[in-house]
């Protein structure tokens, strides 16, 4: 029985890590092509698959409607037992900015304490409520596809992260192209994009004597046709990755999220050419049993805690996300009102997060009404007020050094959020 399939099933249960590199191999091990400048941040995209509930991530505790529509799921206000973490100028040591009227009405779920204690106080954590994509299908599949490609017009151009790497004009000898073999976000563009699925999988694992087999393949692939050239690059990559210590780095929790972020940190420190990591964590489709808002052991509270402790470890490991921008995203948010099963159903806007040395602390978004969640709908969604491409556009432009119109050609990103430093 092979272990190949077991790894596949593991990936299928909702965890995957795809790391995009603009280069690989010895050229990059010795490369100094990426000066530490403002426009050379690395990007880590964390995709919460299933439609993570934005109103639990960032509870609008200041609204009466929130508690009314979520009698059991509402997270209590700051100061109450298991209450939300305050998002105020004071709680951030004056490092956060807010749209008018928002401060003090919205907080962070208490599971985010590891990040609130650090990145929020340093002014490196941005909360982006009511964000999403203009796809109102409420279908996981349709919304996910929309998100990965950055809109239906781009489906045949591949994933937007792959396009971003392609658009980043780097001096790289790496010329592999278009990659359907990876996560759709990073695949699909005719890009100089190499993808490492994970440290464990980017290796010869099935030959009895892997170093000898690798040596033989090196000789068999010596040559100049396109197959030989692509293979030679991959073989060199396997050799490089083989020299990397894949063990869980210290400080990371022993769960899938911790493992994936530990691998990203390892790859970032080993390879200057690796500029983007895209991670996917499943299990956020909480139609039932989300857990009471007051219960620190509720299902979503525990999942958010795993996410936050893993991100905290990653942040501690990278000097507070120095020159790294992390975005936490999902395909859609959920209905405002809770259903009869202690969960919520597919909705529209979610809450995204951005963090790192390149973002400002605070709450950001377009067109907030006087309060975050308008009115008191009997039943309904929070509408998408800010297209996620606004945030991605700004980060591409200001932090990643990529012309955003090359990534989102059918989007007008001129209206800035003021999110990037």
């Amino acid at each position: 029985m092979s272990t190949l399939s077991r790894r596949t099933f593991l990936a299928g249960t909702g965890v995957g890590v795809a790391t995009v590199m603009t280069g690989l191999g010895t050229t990059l091990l010795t490369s100094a092509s990426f000066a530490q400048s403002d426009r050379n941040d690395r990007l880590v995209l964390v995709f919460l698959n299933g439609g993570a509930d934005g109103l639990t991530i960032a509870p609008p505790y200041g609204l009466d409607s929130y508690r009314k529509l979520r009698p059991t799921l509402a997270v209590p206000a700051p100061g109450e037992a298991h209450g939300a973490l305050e998002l105020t100028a004071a709680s951030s040591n004056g490092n956060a900015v807010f749209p008018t009227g928002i401060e003090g009405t919205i907080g962070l779920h208490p599971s985010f304490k590891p990040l609130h204690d650090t990145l929020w106080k340093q002014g490196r954590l941005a909360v982006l409520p009511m964000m999403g994509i203009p796809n109102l299908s409420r279908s996981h599949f349709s919304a996910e596809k929309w998100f990965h490609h950055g809109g239906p017009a781009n489906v045949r151009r591949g994933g937007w992260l792959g396009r971003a790497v392609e658009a980043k004009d780097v001096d790289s000898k790496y010329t592999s192209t278009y990659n359907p073999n990876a996560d759709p976000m990073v695949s699909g563009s005719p890009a100089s994009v190499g993808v490492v699925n994970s440290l464990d999988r980017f290796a010869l694992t099935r030959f009895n004597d892997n170093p000898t087999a690798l040596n033989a393949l090196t000789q068999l692939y010596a040559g100049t046709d396109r197959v030989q050239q692509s293979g030679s690059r991959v073989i060199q990559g396997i050799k490089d990755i083989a020299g990397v210590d894949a063990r869980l780095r210290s400080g990371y929790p022993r769960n899938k999220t911790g493992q994936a972020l530990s691998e990203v940190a390892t790859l970032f420190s080993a390879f200057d050419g690796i500029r983007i990591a895209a991670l996917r964590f499943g299990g956020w489709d909480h139609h039932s049993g989300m857990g009471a808002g007051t219960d620190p052991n509720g299902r979503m509270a525990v999942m958010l805690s795993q996410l936050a402790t893993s991100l905290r470890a990653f942040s501690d490991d990278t000097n507070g996300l120095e020159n790294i921008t992390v975005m936490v995203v999902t395909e859609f948010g959920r209905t405002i009102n809770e259903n009869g099963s202690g969960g919520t159903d597919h909705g529209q806007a979610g809450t995204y997060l951005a963090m790192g040395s390149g973002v400002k602390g605070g709450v950001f978004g377009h067109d907030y009404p006087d309060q975050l969640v308008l009115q008191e709908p009997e039943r309904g969604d929070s509408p998408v007020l800010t297209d996620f491409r606004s945030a991605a556009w700004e980060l591409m432009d200001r932090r990643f050094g990529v012309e955003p119109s090359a990534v989102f050609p059918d989007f007008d990103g001129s209206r800035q959020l003021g999110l990037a430093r």
Partner: protein
Amino acid sequence: MVVGVPARAQSEDVTAVLSGLSKADSTAAIKRLTFGPRPGQLATVNKQGVDAFVDEQLSKTSPDPAAESRLAQFRLFGVARRRDPVDTVRAMHSRYMDQAAAVRMELTHSNLLRAVYSDHQLYEMMCQFWMDHFTVQLVDVGHFALMIPYQEKVIRPNAMGTFRNLLKATAHAPSMLQYLDNHVSDANSPEGVNENYGRELLELHTLGIHGDGSQVYNEADVYAASQAMSGWTVEYAQGNWLEYKFLARLHGGGPLSLLNGQWTSGSASGKAVGDSMLDFLAGHESTARYLAAKLCRRFVSDDDHPALVASAAKVYLDNDTAIVPVLRHIFASEEFRQASARPDAKVRKPFEIMVAMLRAAGSDITGDPHSEQAKELAGFLEELNHRPWHWPTPDGYPDHGSSWLTTAGLVSRFNLAATIAGGSDGYSVDPARYRIDAGKVNGSIRRLAKDVGLIGLGTAHKRVLAAAVGLQLSSPSSELTDEKLTTIAGLLFAHPRFQTR
């Protein structure tokens, strides 16, 4: 000692050049028209003559009964095939959630079994071709089970027939109508028609956008095509099973025209408008060129072949959209012969390379689509990102080598090579076939290379393979343990020449 192989086939110098073609030509033909040789098959084809082999493949325009008999254990295929009593279908639907995984397994495994075992190899290649041309993403269709009749009754019976019939069959298929939203297209609603199907019908199924970016249709034509197809929808029939239905109240009516009046709906009304338009589209010159270009890319090379595309398009139109004459024309072309001689002209897609390995290894694949082995093989395809009916967009799995020569993809191929060559689940190569009494390692490697289709493997590479297991070409063949032989087979499956067809 080798058992069951004619002495003649064991000889390296079977020279059967009946048609004046070299052995290299027959290797190229067999690699291009099939999923790869089975052990000993190259010698057989050399005896038969490559022209006769091509002719034979072109004459096999329906499934190979011997391969079909391997699907006897496919429970859900049986249901879909037999038009079972309503109760069975209803049970299938009501237990839909339980059945979803089973449907996926049967679909995947059916394609594997047929590709590995069918002697009608070109026919199976064409089935895969049309599965991409008329792709439907399984998980985007409400009822997974609908994909079984789509594959069995829409695509496969028409794979080497006429494109006209194939196009019409897909246009009536609930899977396609659902996938591209035509089932909800309502010309009489305030929003008007849903253009999804109409657009892909012109862009991907028929007229096409050509390699140079040109197209003969415009947005007005997309709208007209969508109007013509409005009303082509699905209904619940026979115990919640979805079937095609024309609903006049969703239909927009005419008069409609396409391409500046090259087609008009004329006096037709209702469903006949769509039928008439599909007829027109199937027989249009732009469709002919678009299909010819795709077939050339499939069987010749990734490059453009304007002259061959033009002549193949003419053959298509002269034969009333029949597919086989077009293939025959392409296989007889100078472009086909020249490209076949190039080692990197066509990269095997993951499904193709896995099948090539299973064929070359002489693997014994289970007929139980729900077995552990079947699940493992499906898992490999998923890891390689080429599981049948899983491509997310309406353009089908890409057919350019650059799409597949990717970092993660190649790593997965290398590992698959070692897994299939040395797997313990019945798909390992048979080491006994390659230990030659009183022979040398050189002869063993040569026989193995020939079986997997790597004819003419150079001495330098044979030396590398021997060294990888600590031997020399002059070492006695008897020193090749099972493990050493499967390692060599794995390296051959990972060899750059094995990545192409």
